[in-house]
């Protein structure tokens, strides 16, 4: 007879486990810990958005929507993208509502790659890119982004990673965990390089609204890239809606149709209540987004300032809500740094290598928390680095 675990596919058994699981187990047993660990807004979903969800329940709107999502929502997303980022997508054929941005990444990869294909993934990055690629049987090819380039992707780095097997490049800017952004000018050489290549870009723009310097840019802005770019986004970060599990993906109609097939068999459709709330977010959520962004920006400056005063060098993060601090100057590995910071000073940060090999020597902190927490965390981190210098 087979042992239970022998039923599980090798590819699933080999998936790397969560690198930060141990910290969450630890903080559940500790008191007075300031967690800068989980990448999610500390704001509650704006009340008008919650109200729209509640009201949909009261009206008894509890059945499935169409597979692609309510057309009213897809139209609202199309309007929003046009208004905010000058992106034009046809709500009938080019937008699919998904269960969070994560599902969009999964179905885009499942549509495009399998055994023998290569997916180029600039790291450090969101952990799901690697995991979802591995589940398709394809091979992730990491590019180690560098601090001296402010963790932006350069053409030279991209060129070095491309082979005849490369089918997809995943771009995640504004970036989790580094907070790096890429401007139109910085994306241009990448777009030009890709012009005559048979490579599809999955552009994860879930943090687009959280850009603190100028406006967000998407690689799909380049005319020749639009057809071969799949734009992934969602409501979790900008509208503080992580628990609603709702996002969307935009691409040409052929890609959208193919992704819809995977979506319909795996998930049918996104939750109806979340879709109704999302319509309100698209139509009347902008003021609240702007309020939250102003607030994040203040917290961002406060945290960066505190980290620098504690002797940690960190490059200026201009997007998302993370600070990616270089802790190598402390003489500790990032894991030792995070372990001791948590156990001795009760602040949770996540070691950089959880986000890919190039994260060694770094630690991620999120500033999606109150001023008071940031001020106290800054103080404790300074006490920690001071104690190391003695």
């Amino acid at each position: 007879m087979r042992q239970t675990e022998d039923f599980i596919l090798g590819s699933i058994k080999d998936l790397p486990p969560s690198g930060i699981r141990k910290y969450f187990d630890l903080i559940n047993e500790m008191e007075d810990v300031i967690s800068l660990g989980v990448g999610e807004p500390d704001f509650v979903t704006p009340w008008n958005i919650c109200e729209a969800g509640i009201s949909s329940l009261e009206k008894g709107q509890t059945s499935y929507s169409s597979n692609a999502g309510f057309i009213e929502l897809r139209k609202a997303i199309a309007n929003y993208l046009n208004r905010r980022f000058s992106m034009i997508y046809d709500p009938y054929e080019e937008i699919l509502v998904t269960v969070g941005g994560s599902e969009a990444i999964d179905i885009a990869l499942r549509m495009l790659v399998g055994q023998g294909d290569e997916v180029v993934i600039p790291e450090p990055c969101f952990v799901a890119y690697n995991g979802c690629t591995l589940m398709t049987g394809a091979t992730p090819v990491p590019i180690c982004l560098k601090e001296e380039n402010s963790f932006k992707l350069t053409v030279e780095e991209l060129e070095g990673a491309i082979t005849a097997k490369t089918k997809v490049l995943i771009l995640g800017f504004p970036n989790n965990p580094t907070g790096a952004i890429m401007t139109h000018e910085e994306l241009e050489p990448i777009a030009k390089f890709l012009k005559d290549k048979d490579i599809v870009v999955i552009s994860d723009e879930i943090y687009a609204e959280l850009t603190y310097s100028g406006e967000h840019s998407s690689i799909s802005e380049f005319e020749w890239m639009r057809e071969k770019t799949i734009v992934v986004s969602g409501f979790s970060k900008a509208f503080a809606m992580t628990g609603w599990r709702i996002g969307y993906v935009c691409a040409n109609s052929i890609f959208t149709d193919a992704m819809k097939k995977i979506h319909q068999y795996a998930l049918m459709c996104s939750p109806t209540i979340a879709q109704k709330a999302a319509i309100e977010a698209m139509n009347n959520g902008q003021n609240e987004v702007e309020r939250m962004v102003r607030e994040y920006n203040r917290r961002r400056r406060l945290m960066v300032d505190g980290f620098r005063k504690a002797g940690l060098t960190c490059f200026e993060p201009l997007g998302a809500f993370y600070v990616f601090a270089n802790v190598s100057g402390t003489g500790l590995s990032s894991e030792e740094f995070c372990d001791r910071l948590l156990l001795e000073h009760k602040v949770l940060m996540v070691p950089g290598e959880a986000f890919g090999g190039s994260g060694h020597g770094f630690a991620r902190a999120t500033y999606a928390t109150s001023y008071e927490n940031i001020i106290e965390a800054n103080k404790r981190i300074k006490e920690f680095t001071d104690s190391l210098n003695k």
Partner: protein
Amino acid sequence: MNEILEILEKNSKLTTEQVAVMAAMSEEDVKTAIAKFEADGVILGYNTTVNWEMTDKEVVTALIEVKVTPQRGDGFDKVAERIFRFQEVRDCYLMSGGFDLTVVIEGKTMKEVAQFVSEKLSPLESVLSTATHFVLKKYKDKGIVFEKRTQEPREGIFL
């Protein structure tokens, strides 16, 4: 400059150094700006929002609708001043609609508030009528929700 005010309105305990970092300004500029705001009466005070119900101090709050006769030449302002000068009056607003002034009173007991209305407010010559509403429970004050949400502990999430 509004940035400084927005930051301080939320938390006036922040140091000028912290405000300067958050607003991306020099500490010197923040100091000068705050001093000017205070001198010009833009910043009127630095208060603490207290939930007295959590303490043993008894506090009763009442909202009083007041109808008055405006005075020739001075309109409502002089009448309002006769009212808001009383120590017991916490807030006083001129209103549109069915009555003229909203007066918020804080006292130790309902009796104390009633006494204020009957002995000080109503006898004023310009006051035509009053309607007193006692606050039974405060849910939110100056943007702060009184009952703290409790967060359930959650198991690990990796993102």
